[in-house]
């Protein structure tokens, strides 16, 4: 791997649309963070979230998903080897991401077809010619999975050994992390180490450090077991064309995050602007906006999405020349899917914002501002907007998991992401055929299931904590 980094000029960065928007999303999240840090009424509930052990554990897992997703969002094209000196520099048409480099072998070790997790031999029998001209139907050995095994080393012994070494490394790393962190923490609070341990266990800090440390340790141990194993074997098997399923599941993270995150980013301006405008101006503006969203919401969501995606397909077929690569085409389709999903999902938030603005408009401080002659724009930005922010925060985190789940369903219906794009939805979709085989191919479904479940569950737990903290009705209970 290091030789990749020695010569940076051998890369040509590629910025896909969703990459740019994801970075924009990050930037706007940063901006919101800065904004929130100056707003006491938003900070107080966030402090409450920070103290909750379960929420912080969920956030840790979420952040590691986001980390992988971001790694997968930095795309580039590699330089092709020069065939003759003085030739113009050419770049590979294949768009890779930083994640592809990091996982390296996972991407490249492609078998011929299905193989079970940790298998050394193919899943299906093939006719093979043995030396001496004898032809036999046998399970052919895999080209990469367990290829390092020799006669003296059996598969199960090797796996046990790798598991043991990986677990040991993981425990060591986790322990080091724990020691370093608790030492730093006790230095910071100027308290003896023993007291720090006690405080960690009883969740006495402003941030639930204990939960974060435990989650991080578990992740570290898991990763240190997975890395050596997946280097030697296909940890979750291979799919129909022999690609490593673990690699596919990892690549699916980005697709899920883009759908969950970008859709919100896309719809947020609409919902904010229309919702506040309807609530504040009332009269015909309100009537018009209400009519608009009632009409849109009366079309069943899946059907509207299906109709829009069908039309998008027609459009993309017509303008097939304007996309330079499959990756680019899949990316544009993903972006439009986000736009379309955004079109159907802004309505709920808009309705909430309208209601809240209607209420705020009559509040004393807004009336006072009007009486003092404060301009309309200023009232909207200084007095209304900060006081509806909590609704925006709640609905952003609440929508996320639903959108990730929707991706799978839409891909199944055939109106989801591009079939060429790696996504959990597409993996599940192909699993339908695999489950009908005898014996069944269960690993791609399980891998997609575990990765998706992890993301959606942690997002749900985190969003619950955020909602509990921000929703005053629930807090009083």
């Amino acid at each position: 791997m290091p030789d990749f980094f020695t010569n940076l000029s051998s890369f040509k960065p590629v910025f896909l649309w969703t990459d740019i928007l994801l970075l924009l999303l990050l930037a706007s999240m940063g901006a919101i963070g800065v904004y929130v840090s100056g707003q006491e009424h938003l900070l107080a509930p966030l402090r409450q979230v920070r103290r909750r052990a379960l929420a912080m554990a969920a956030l840790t897992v979420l952040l590691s998903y986001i980390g992988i997703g971001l790694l997968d969002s930095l795309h580039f094209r590699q330089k092709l080897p020069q065939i003759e000196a003085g030739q113009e520099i050419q770049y590979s048409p294949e768009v890779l991401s930083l994640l592809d480099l990091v996982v390296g072998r996972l991407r490249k070790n492609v078998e011929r077809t299905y193989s079970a997790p940790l298998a050394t031999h193919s899943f299906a029998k093939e006719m093979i010619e043995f030396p001496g001209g004898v032809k036999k139907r046998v399970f052919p050995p895999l080209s990469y999975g367990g290829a390092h095994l020799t006669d003296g080393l059996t598969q199960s012994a090797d796996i046990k050994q790798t598991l043991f070494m990986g677990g040991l490394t993981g425990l060591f790393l986790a322990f080091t992390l724990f020691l370093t962190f608790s030492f730093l923490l006790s230095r910071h609070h100027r308290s003896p180490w023993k007291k720090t341990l006690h405080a960690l266990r009883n969740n006495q800090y402003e941030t639930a450090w204990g939960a974060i440390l435990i989650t991080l340790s578990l992740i570290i141990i898991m990763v240190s077991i997975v890395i050596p194993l997946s280097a030697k074997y296909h940890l979750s098997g291979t799919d129909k064309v022999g690609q490593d399923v673990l690699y596919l599941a990892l690549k699916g993270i980005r697709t899920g995050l883009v759908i969950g995150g970008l859709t919100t980013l896309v719809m947020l301006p609409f919902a904010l602007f229309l919702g506040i405008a309807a609530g504040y101006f009332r009269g015909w503006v309100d009537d018009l906006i209400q009519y608009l969203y009632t009409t849109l919401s009366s079309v069943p969501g899946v059907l509207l999405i299906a109709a829009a995606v069908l039309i998008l397909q027609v459009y993309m077929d017509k303008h097939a020349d304007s996309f330079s690569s499959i990756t680019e085409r899949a990316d544009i389709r993903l972006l439009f899917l986000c736009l379309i999903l955004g079109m159907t999902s802004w309505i709920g938030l808009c309705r909430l914002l309208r209601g809240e603005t209607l209420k705020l408009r009559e509040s004393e401080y807004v009336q006072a501002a009007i009486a003092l002659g404060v301009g309309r724009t200023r009232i909207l930005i200084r007095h209304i907007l900060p006081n509806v922010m909590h609704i925006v925060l709640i609905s952003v985190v609440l929508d996320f998991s639903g959108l990730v789940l929707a991706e799978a369903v839409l891909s199944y219906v055939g109106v989801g992401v591009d079939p060429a794009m790696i996504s959990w939805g597409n993996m599940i979709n192909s699993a339908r055929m695999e489950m009908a085989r005898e014996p069944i191919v269960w690993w791609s479904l399980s891998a997609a299931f575990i990765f998706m479940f992890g993301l959606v569950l942690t997002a749900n737990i985190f969003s619950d904590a955020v909602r509990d903290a921000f929703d005053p009705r629930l807090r009083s209970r």
Partner: protein
Amino acid sequence: MTAYIVRRLLYAFPILIGVNLLTFLLFFVINTPDDMARLHLGGKRVTQEAVDKWKADHGYNKPLAINLSAQGSGKLTETIFFEKSLRLFFFDFGRADDGRNIGADIRQRMWPSLAIAIPGLLVGLFVNVTVAMLIAFFRASYIDTWGVIVAVAMMSISSLFYIIGGQFLFSKMLRLVPISGYDGGLNAVKFLILPVIIGLIAGVGTGTRWYRTIFLEEIGKDYVRTARAKGLSELTVLFGHVLRNALVPILTGVVVVIPLLFLGSLITESFFSIPGLGSYTIDAINSQDFAIVRAMVFLGSFLYIIGLLLTDISYTWVDPRVRLN
């Protein structure tokens, strides 16, 4: 009361017009009949004559909104908008790309959809409300905490997994019910059990949590405290007072989806090969039959608006305060 309903009806009409205009925009303006023809004839190397012939065969060979070549009122009536879009108002859905009558297909396929959707709704409602009541009864205890955790975990699993897993477990491993298919009459029962159960399991997490919130909100109110102060047992309070009051949000939540039951469920029907409207829609999407998708979009919106109307009416029925205003 009548005036109220009439007012709601009048309010629903413009929305229906809006939906109609939206489908017209999506299916004829953004995606022109030429595109549709090319899509079906395949690729770009299609001659203009072939496109024109396809359009003529399917009745798309007219101007979009105004026909200048026609006489009198024909200027407006001999157009795609009038023939394809406005006719939807009279439930004249026209013909699919393969020439079948969409309206007749819908009437025929409606019944399997209902046969699976109605039991699904009733069983789901009963189980969700019961479980939520139990959790509310044991509120702020371990049962409550773990109930919510299980509910959150269950709603974090995609419905596709429930279906694939359920089919595998009940049909392939245990061989209790057929994996998929449909039959008329009472024979349908054995095909419907599995989808209904899986639908129940897939929805129980979301449903329980939703109803628990409603119950907890009611339990916090003053009349509950009064009932307890009278010395009523917790069970009487829950079933006699809380449940009755919580029925208002429950009922309105259910009423709005009743008309949509006709549409069936896309995923369930296609996995279990039930010949309902859901699988009809999926087939249409896969074969890119825009006429059917358009008809289903309009029908879906129509049913949704009916649902909203029914919700309004049921509100006035269960909550006299609405009627008096």
